[in-house]
């Protein structure tokens, strides 16, 4: 299954506040808008969002994941709608009554309507890199250039052999740990493929 992992931190709330606020609205209204807090250098991957939207149209929602890179917590969410601003633009929340107050003046490049949000263990699934769609020139970007710090996974085979290759060489390589995500790419959104550990779809 192709999907996305969205990175976030509790930058404007107390620790755990982001999830608390979203859960509160989710329980109160049945759904909540999650804003993608992209970095300024990231581009909006409309093509990828279109693929996910097709899945949503066919199956009513799509499973995606949230990664709190401050606390190392991982969440599974169901996304029933995606709204994405035109390239290089940002939009405020589609519905202030369904998003935490701290968002309301902050435009984001895309918004995801969540209908469920639960904490899981990263190890509950096996994840593989698909692509880095928010990096404009991922085919020309060397993996070694985007590793923020020494990642143990990249210190040994098979990943060590790919250091001088472009990011696309990571496609279908397994994401070994959340540390890999935190320190690789400097991005807030990864396209990934996943299989649950129990082998179910």
């Amino acid at each position, binding site marked *: 299954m192709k999907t996305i992992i969205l990175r976030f931190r509790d930058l404007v709330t107390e620790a755990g506040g982001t999830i608390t606020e979203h859960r509160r609205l989710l329980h109160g209204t049945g759904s909540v808008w999650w804003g993608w807090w992209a970095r300024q250098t990231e581009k909006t991957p*409309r093509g990828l969002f*279109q693929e996910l939207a097709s899945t*949503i149209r066919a199956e009513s929602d799509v499973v995606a994941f949230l990664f709190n890179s401050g606390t190392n917590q991982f969440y599974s969410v169901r996304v029933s709608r995606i*709204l994405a601003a*035109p390239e290089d633009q940002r939009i405020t929340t589609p519905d202030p*009554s369904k998003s935490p*107050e701290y968002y*309301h003046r902050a435009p984001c490049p*895309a918004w995801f309507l969540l209908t469920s949000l639960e904490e899981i263990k990263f190890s509950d699934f096996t994840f593989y890199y698909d692509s880095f769609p928010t990096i404009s020139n991922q085919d020309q970007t060397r993996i070694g250039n985007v590793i923020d710090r020494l990642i143990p996974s990249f210190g040994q085979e098979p990943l060590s052999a790919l250091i001088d290759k472009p990011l696309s060489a990571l496609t279908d390589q397994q994401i070994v740990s959340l540390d890999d995500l935190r320190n690789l790419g400097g991005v807030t959104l990864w396209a990934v493929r996943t299989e649950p550990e129990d082998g179910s779809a």
Partner: protein
Amino acid sequence: MILLNSELHERLKHSLAEAESTNNSDQWAKLLALNPMSDGLLALLDFGLDRPFFNNVVSTKDINSWFLRVREWRETAVLDASLSPSSLETASLVLFALWENVSSTTRKLLRDAKTHNPTLPDEGGVLMFLGGLSKCLVIGYRILSGSPDLSVEAVVNNPKSVFDFWEAADHVDPHRRNQLKRILGTGHKIVVHRGIIVPIDRNLDSQVFGPTIDTLVLAELLAQQVLEFAHQQYSYALEVGCGNGLLTAALAHHCDSLKELAAIDTNFGAVSRTTKNVLSSSDYLARQDPPTTYFICGPFNPSLLARKFDLVVCNPPYIPVVPGVKIYDRSRSDFYPAVGGTDLMRVVLEALPEILNRDGKLLIMTSSLSTDDFRRFLPSGFKAEAAVAGGIRVRFDVEAAIKDSTWLTFLETEKGLTREVDGTYSHVLHPFWVHRG
């Protein structure tokens, strides 16, 4: 109503033409985002909505209904992720950028207004007059967790009086009609124009008049003057008879090189409202070097001001009264002193040698009812140029005069007030620029 080609307007039109030929709306979107006062709708109408570029999105005939359904259109035509990037029409992106500009400006203004006006209701409506005054959007708002959620309830073409708004209720669906009636019938009047918001609470601001179409015409001319002649620096500006404060707020907001700004009115409520309207703008307060601002309650006295100004604005009473009637002896609750007589016009014009710098100018409103007075009061050495060729014919809806049969007859028989076939009355607004000749 008023369409002038300002440098920024031309740049917007040029960017639209570029979007049409290159299929890239970026430049237009950037210009709009950089300048909330730019009002892209003015450029859009001038550019030509009936061009093939817009065929699949909206046409000149359909722009009003596009506004009415803009929230749904925005999501389904642009934001919906199921649309492929290549299927996003450039014309859609152009209109999307326009609405983002309009709505984000309005939201910000409402947030500022709510912060400084605690009685502002969490739910209501805003009358947003677009550049050129060709249209007014009646925008319903709900403030949810500090953030205004907006919906366009009606679009009024060429708004000239309050009756145009009530008539608009006949042309919208029942749900919108009820919304519109609620907005127009509320005790709050919130006007937005070119990046300025003026909220009037009819209960708290019972002595404050307007803003009405004549104030908006002056505000539009002021905005166009600043855009048209962006190289001109205004250091000292004055509004005489500030009333609801729209023009003082416009001076404060549009003239970013001001060192001093003064506003004067005999009515304390008007001065209080003006002060709030100027100081509630977060952009103004955040300026590195805001001008020294004087809010003066009292009669206009050029000697008291003791300085000359580059720019003076005045929307004085311009309806002549029956000879022998003293305005200030009458205790009326229908704003009689705010609209009746031409004394303030005379005082301001006679004071020009004392209050205008050598290159300074006055923007003043008159009417076909009082242009003879205006010409008589104009001091020698000063020239008056019509700001709008031929003036603007508007409905005469001054309640104080309409209720007074003696006054009404005087205006009709002696001053040229026109009675229309439907029994209503009209006159022509004549705004003038006055400067040393």
